[in-house]
């Protein structure tokens, strides 16, 4: 038992360990959070950040180790107890009812019987005092993602926590919204509150955090002062070695290359009350180029992807054209047969069936395009050739797995994503549409996937990448368009694009379409 607890530490964690099966998700983690500091928790996906935080918030029980709160040993057995101690948490994925107002949502979680009007007044006062203006009467469904995050933060602050845990808070914000958030965080720090800030955005961490704890493979690999580090040195600590930089060879002769994917006047009514309508989207992607679509989550990207992939058909056959032919009324299978390939945002349950083997998941998107080699006479599946094709993809994409042909759900997110992207690359499609290509994928695998997409384009395909990760889009794209509230801006050539310009567009500035490259082509 360690007895030298520093009273200045709000939270002290000693040897915290959580084991899932044979995997030590957290392995003897030590962590100190002082009063009035912003402490970064850094690590790649799968490094154990979420598991650690869940143990601190009482939703997971550690196998061993100790937690000290203000110098006292505590066992945090439930989120309710964590709140009582003074630990608040803002999750990456919000838990808000869209059909209720902000105040009603807050009242639900406080659950102390005080009248909604009183809660609304308190929330309003609190939100203005922290520079996070919020109308408690507004319906959550009508709010932007950034505004929804404010509700979560206000909800957390109403419980007057001493420690606030923020999980990837800026992943859903525009750069300008993120700046606002940072001001709030600095204000909270000035009041003596502590913040545990989880992120993989190193520039942010360098900017606002006082100290950082870096996790890798469930272990603490180092504590540091992020201000004295460079982004590269922090990345090295997280990954364990240099990440290979993505090389983007200059695109040649794109201006004269044929447009392989054309979207013309694509409009879609919302399918549910909270879906985003698509408004007159125009875009063309030429052979040899990568076009990126930036945007804050929930601005119509999902609806756009479904429309382009053919999971949802269009009334106007000419609104989506693939390799010069109308595809608006063609099913996803038909569009694949025209040469297109698609990678959706959700891996499990959309891009792959979780409880099916990788070889079966190969068949999922390629049963028609590779009908001759994968399906024999009478509709019999040629298991042998499907299996060997799956093994070929696994080798090409360096998919790490525990069995020769495991179920999709048994793979880590990054490895499954490599397989799903590899499944489509293996076809050498002439049009590739990818939604969030490296979401939740570790840095090494992400570089691999990005490089593969660039090479596909340079070999003569048209590649369209939808992403919330601006760094990724700047690394990949020849031009970036921005989706905001169901509208798509004209693509900015990468040479003219800056974080600031894209960020302003993401926030809804310069709405409408100044020009359409398609029309000038």
């Amino acid at each position, binding site marked *: 038992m360690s007895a030298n607890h520093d009273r200045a530490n709000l939270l002290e964690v000693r040897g915290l360990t959580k084991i899932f099966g044979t995997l030590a998700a957290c392995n003897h983690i030590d962590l100190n959070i002082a009063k009035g500091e912003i402490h970064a928790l850094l690590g790649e996906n799968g490094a154990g950040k979420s598991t650690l935080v869940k143990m601190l918030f009482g939703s997971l029980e550690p196998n061993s180790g100790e937690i000290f709160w203000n110098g006292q040993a505590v*066992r945090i057995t439930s989120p309710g107890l964590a709140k009582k*101690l003074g630990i608040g948490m803002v999750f990456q994925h919000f838990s808000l009812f869209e059909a209720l107002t902000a105040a009603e949502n807050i009242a639900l979680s406080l659950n102390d019987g005080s009248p909604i009007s009183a809660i609304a007044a308190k929330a309003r006062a609190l939100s203005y005092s922290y520079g996070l203006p919020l109308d408690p009467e507004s319906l959550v469904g009508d709010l932007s993602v950034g505004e929804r995050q404010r509700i979560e933060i206000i909800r957390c602050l109403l419980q007057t926590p001493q420690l606030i845990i923020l999980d990837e808070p800026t992943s859903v914000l525009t750069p300008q919204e993120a700046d606002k958030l940072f001001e709030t965080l600095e204000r909270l720090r000035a009041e003596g509150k502590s913040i545990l800030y989880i992120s993989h955005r190193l520039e942010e961490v360098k900017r606002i955090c006082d100290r950082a704890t870096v996790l890798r493979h469930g272990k603490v690999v180092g504590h540091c002062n992020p201000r004295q580090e460079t982004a590269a040195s922090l990345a090295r600590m997280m990954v364990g070695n240099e990440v290979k930089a993505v090389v983007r060879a200059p695109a040649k002769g794109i201006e004269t290359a044929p447009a392989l994917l054309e979207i013309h006047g694509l409009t879609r009514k919302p399918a549910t009350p909270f879906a985003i309508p698509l408004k007159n989207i125009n875009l063309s992607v030429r052979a040899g180029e990568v076009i990126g679509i930036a945007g804050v989550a929930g601005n119509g990207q999902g609806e756009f992807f479904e429309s382009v992939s053919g999971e949802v058909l269009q009334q106007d056959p000419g609104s989506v054209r693939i390799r010069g032919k109308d595809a608006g009324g063609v099913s*996803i299978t038909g569009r694949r047969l025209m040469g297109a390939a698609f990678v959706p945002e959700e891996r499990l349950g959309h891009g792959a*069936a*979780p409880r099916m083997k990788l070889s079966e998941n190969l068949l999922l*998107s390629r049963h028609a395009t590779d009908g001759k080699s994968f399906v024999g006479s009478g509709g019999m599946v040629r298991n042998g050739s499907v299996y060997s094709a799956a093994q070929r993809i696994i080798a090409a994409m360096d998919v790490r797995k525990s069995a020769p042909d495991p*179920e999709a759900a048994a793979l880590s997110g990054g490895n499954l994503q490599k397989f799903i992207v590899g499944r489509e690359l293996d076809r050498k499609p002439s049009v590739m549409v990818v939604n969030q290509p490296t979401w939740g994928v570790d840095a090494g695998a992400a570089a691999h996937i990005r490089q593969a997409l660039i090479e596909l384009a340079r070999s003569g395909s048209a590649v369209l990448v939808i992403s919330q990760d601006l760094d990724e889009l700047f690394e990949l794209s020849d031009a970036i368009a921005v989706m905001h509230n169901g509208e798509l801006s004209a693509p900015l050539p990468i040479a003219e694009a800056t974080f600031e310009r894209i960020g302003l567009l993401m926030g809804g500035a310069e709405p409408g379409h100044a020009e359409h490259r398609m029309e000038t082509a």
Partner: protein
Amino acid sequence: MMRLELVKRPQRSALFSVLSPFIAFALTMIAGAIMFALLGVSPLNAFNVYFVQPISEVWQLHELAIKAAPLILIAVGLSVCYKANIWNIGAEGQFILGGIFGSIIPVLFPEFEGPLVLPLMLLLGMVGGALYAAIPALLKTRFSTNEILTSLMLVYVAQLFLDWLVRGPWRDPQGHGFPQTIQFGDSAVLPELMPDAGRANWGFVFALVAAVTVWLMMSRMLKGFEVRVLGSSPRAGRFAGFGLSKMVFFTFLLSGALAGLAGISEVSGAIGQLQPVISPGYGFTAIIVAFLGRLNPLGIVAAGLVLALTYLGGEAVQSALGISDKVARVFQGMLLFFVLGCDTLIHYRIRLIGFAAPQLEAAPKLEEAR
């Protein structure tokens, strides 16, 4: 304090996939022994009468096959539905409509005889079952109604329709007022397989052929893959380009046709005419058969034989021990209950957790060991 915790397995357990029905069967036997003891009968004696005596002679095995045939035929069709996560609960009604449609020829055209009669009857039986199953499929795809409710409610419609037919327009005029149709002619009766040994008819062969064919489809063919994908992750199925509406119709029509075939086989083979009641609940018992057989057509053959035995055993305990034959229903219900319960073991491990120092109090406690 000790508590049980279910821990999710990373992969489904192949071992417990196989073991689960056997564990369920053992638990059913234990519960059954308690039930017999409470009824005042020695469990050993009762088990002997219930499970052993009904299959101790060759002719009795034929009776078993007669009971198992409709269960297997129906359950094989249902297994495809359930794999696709589509819930056809109305096989009993489709069974009855199959019996009615198939009886059109022998009842309305008794003078039409010859080798064509039987194949036509079987075909009509399948059409009848499929058409009746198309109703909940249509309602589901057009109006998003819940197919569990519609298919179930249509069972009662079918039962009353049959009752009306045999009491009304289709009643045998020479039948002394009994509610039944005329006896089918020779060419309308499904032949027995081995007339010298027992009564088992071709229905059992149909069941085996259906089981093997559907097993091939589900395990080797693209169609079976489509069923499994749409059943386990519909969004991934849509991404694959498989249509859910088409799948609803495919599974309902297939299971309806097989239930209809079972219906006409039963009417033409085991009964020989239409009566107000032509099924002791085969369509519902087949749901248990499907799950006990792990929704695998080959497993369903074995499960069908087990459930057929519960019917025979029920009759046996009634005549030998004077216990109600509703005991059969109790056994069937317990079996389904335990099968579904034991299936948890396929995806979860059970772990016993003990606390050295239980802490029920929410208050943080002071570190004392300084």
